[in-house]
């Protein structure tokens, strides 16, 4: 277990090193200068020169990269060029917003898609079942930014129930903070809900054809008991992997939704960082994303092993 974890950690760190190197070289090739991007056409030559000196941008590219690696080994992610603040601080400030949005979206995904998916598998051929099926197709097809604007128009503009851009920091107004995440959460989770419903339905229908289900029926168990006690446990495994991927996706920041609702999360920060050619900030966020992906998949594998002991902690079936 520990060995496997360490192997994974080592491979993730190597990947991260390669990714950081790749990003660094891409940033050298693509056009754009972080100082000009920050100051714009009004740039004062003296201030421009000073900022280049202060942020070490007057050094050769390789020296800058090595500086970044050395600082990283000391636990310092460097200073953002755009914001002139420590990268750690910027990520730490944005992380709670993305985490809250993730929790809320994931809550919606789990508690809407699981019961609906099960119900749909059980009532596959009913009229309502067909309707929900069609609805899930629509849910996958609708782009999240379009849904976001529609939600704003309906709940914000027409009905006036929820704020369009009501983001307030949790520390200032916890209630306002939660209200501001309602619509973005729905916009993010809709397509994921549709995906999980379809996956779970297909997986349950597959399992229902297995021999053990026939045996259970012959034993006289009710359909609900068979479904929840026996089928769900087996049908849930592929869904768990999908849920893991969805969770990681949301955790690493929904660039489109965070921007549309102006929520200062990781996604919006990454967008600003790329637009501003803010290399230290992009590198810092990449590090965060790599960590989430590594530990996210590790968690999913461990959970899979717990649910089905035949699966080892590397996610392989024994």
């Amino acid at each position, binding site marked *: 277990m520990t060995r496997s974890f360490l192997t994974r950690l080592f491979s993730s760190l190597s990947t991260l090193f390669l990714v950081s190197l790749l990003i660094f070289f891409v940033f050298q090739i693509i056009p754009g200068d972080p100082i000009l991007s920050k100051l714009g056409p009004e740039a004062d*030559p003296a201030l421009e020169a000073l900022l280049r000196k202060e942020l070490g941008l007057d050094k050769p590219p390789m020296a800058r990269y090595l500086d970044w690696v050395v600082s990283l080994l000391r636990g310092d992610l460097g200073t953002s060029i755009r914001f002139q603040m420590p990268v750690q601080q910027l990520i730490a*400030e944005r992380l709670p917003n993305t985490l809250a949005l993730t929790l809320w979206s994931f809550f919606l995904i789990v508690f809407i898609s699981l019961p609906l998916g099960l119900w749909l598998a059980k009532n596959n051929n009913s009229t309502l079942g067909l309707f929900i099926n069609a609805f899930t197709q629509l849910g996958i097809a609708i782009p999240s930014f379009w849904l976001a604007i529609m939600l704003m128009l309906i709940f914000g503009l027409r009905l006036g129930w929820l704020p369009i851009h009501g*983001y307030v920091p949790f520390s200032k107004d916890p209630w306002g903070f939660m209200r501001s995440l309602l619509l973005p959460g729905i916009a993010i989770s809709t397509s994921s809900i549709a995906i999980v419903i379809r996956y779970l339905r297909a997986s349950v229908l597959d399992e229902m054809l297995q021999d053990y289900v026939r045996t259970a029926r012959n034993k006289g168990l009710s359909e609900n008991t068979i479904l929840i006690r026996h089928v769900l446990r087996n049908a849930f495994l592929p869904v768990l992997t999908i849920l893991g991927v969805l969770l990681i996706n949301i955790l690493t920041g929904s660039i489109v939704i965070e921007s549309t609702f102006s929520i200062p999360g990781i996604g919006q920060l990454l967008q600003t960082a790329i637009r501003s050619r803010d290399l230290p900030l992009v590198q810092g966020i990449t590090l965060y994303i790599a960590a989430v992906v590594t530990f996210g998949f590790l968690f999913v594998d461990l959970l899979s092993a717990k649910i089905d002991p035949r699966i080892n902690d590397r996610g392989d079936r024994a």
Partner: protein
Amino acid sequence: MKRILLLLMILTVFLFSACNQEPPLDVPSLKSVVVGIPQDFDSLDPHRSVATGTQEVMLNLFSGLITITLDGEIINDLAEEIEVSEDLMTYTVKLKQPVKFHNDQAMTSKDVAYTFNRLNGRTEDQPDPLTANFNAIESIETPDDETVIFKMNRVDVAFLSKLMIAIIPEGSGPDQAKEPIGAGPFKFDGYTAGVGIDMLRHDSYHGTLPELEKVEFKIYTDANTGFLALQVGEVDILNLTLDQTYSVDQSKITVLTAPQNMVQLITLNFEFEPFQNLKVRQALNHAINKEEIIEMLAPGSPQLDTNYSPIMGYYYNKDTEDYYDYNPDKAKELLKAAGYEDLTFSLKVPTEYPFHVDTALLLQAQLENVGVNMKLLPIEWNTWLSEVYESALYEASIIGLTGKLDPDTILNRFETTFLRNFYNYSNSYYDDLIEQARKTADPEERREIYREAQMILTEEAVAIFIMDPTLYRAVNNRLSGLHTYPIGFIDMSTVKIKD
């Protein structure tokens, strides 16, 4: 299953309760206004910020020795009196008293000296200059708490107009980027990167006390979201596009219009051979129907034929107006005479600015009428800054150049030695004029020089100057008293909430 049902019920209750608009706590309501802005700040430190978008917000926090009126006239602010020696080598400033900074510290001459020394990189906490704007200052003397004497090393006639720079308390420089402190009508109350900045009224403000107690500047990176927020009343003040002005609910929102002191122009790179020919440049100017462009994209905007907005009335040369009438036949003749009947060139346009993209599309159609093939090359803003602004790797481009208080900072953009002379224009007579204006103290004489400089830009058809695009600023009808200035400034100190 029961647990799932229970959780679903909790979720439903949460959803419905969250839709309830009543705030949960009895928060005392302040006279508060929300202003929507399109971008984050380049720095909260007033001496490290250059972006117009930052300036128009931060001017609410800071006061300078001078300020401007609605017409762009310079008047004293923190200065009670400014005495200028005949040779323009000494400026004696008597400070207004009492003036308090946001931290309740009284302003003295030491703070003023610190401010300018910091800008010039002559303080312990700032050893490098932050700007080249004040390098004409040789030394600063503070004979008493209320008097500051600036000794100059050379004549800088624009010096007075530069004194609008924010005065900050002595020693506060290193902290300004985190917690800006000034002497303006509002004080800093918090900033969240990507979200916005909050300000509270500065109750010890030295001028007329604002009526508003709180102002929130919220960042809306998505223009559609900002517009929706304006319509539902979440935002009180917001800049709009022309399209958006057509769909505002006029019973709730008023749209103010004003010139921006900006010049929208097609820059022509003189390194590109056809543009070295005066006839070609003149032909392009005649081929463009500016009236049509203005009518379609920004009705009411002043049409331009030089790099200066009429909003800065005193120095503006009216004779440049309508210098190039819309005359496609003449354009064709000129192109023929120049030997460029089938001229083809590319125009790099920054995609982040839909206004410039729309203008470019109209221009393309108009130029086609005279046989000119203009290819559009849409590029990202950062690429524009690197390729066009920094490296001049382009044939033609379109951009808006922001105007400043002093004509030197506008007209020097066409000087041969200007750091970002991305048009590669060089005219020694023009250079001499600009240099001469810098040393001319007499305002009348200086005005004549600048007017001549503007006429040179017109006659030489250095670029295709189009317009000073109208600013459309939406204001919720519950407010009154919002004014527009010839520089970027959303002045909240005069805004009132109607009863």
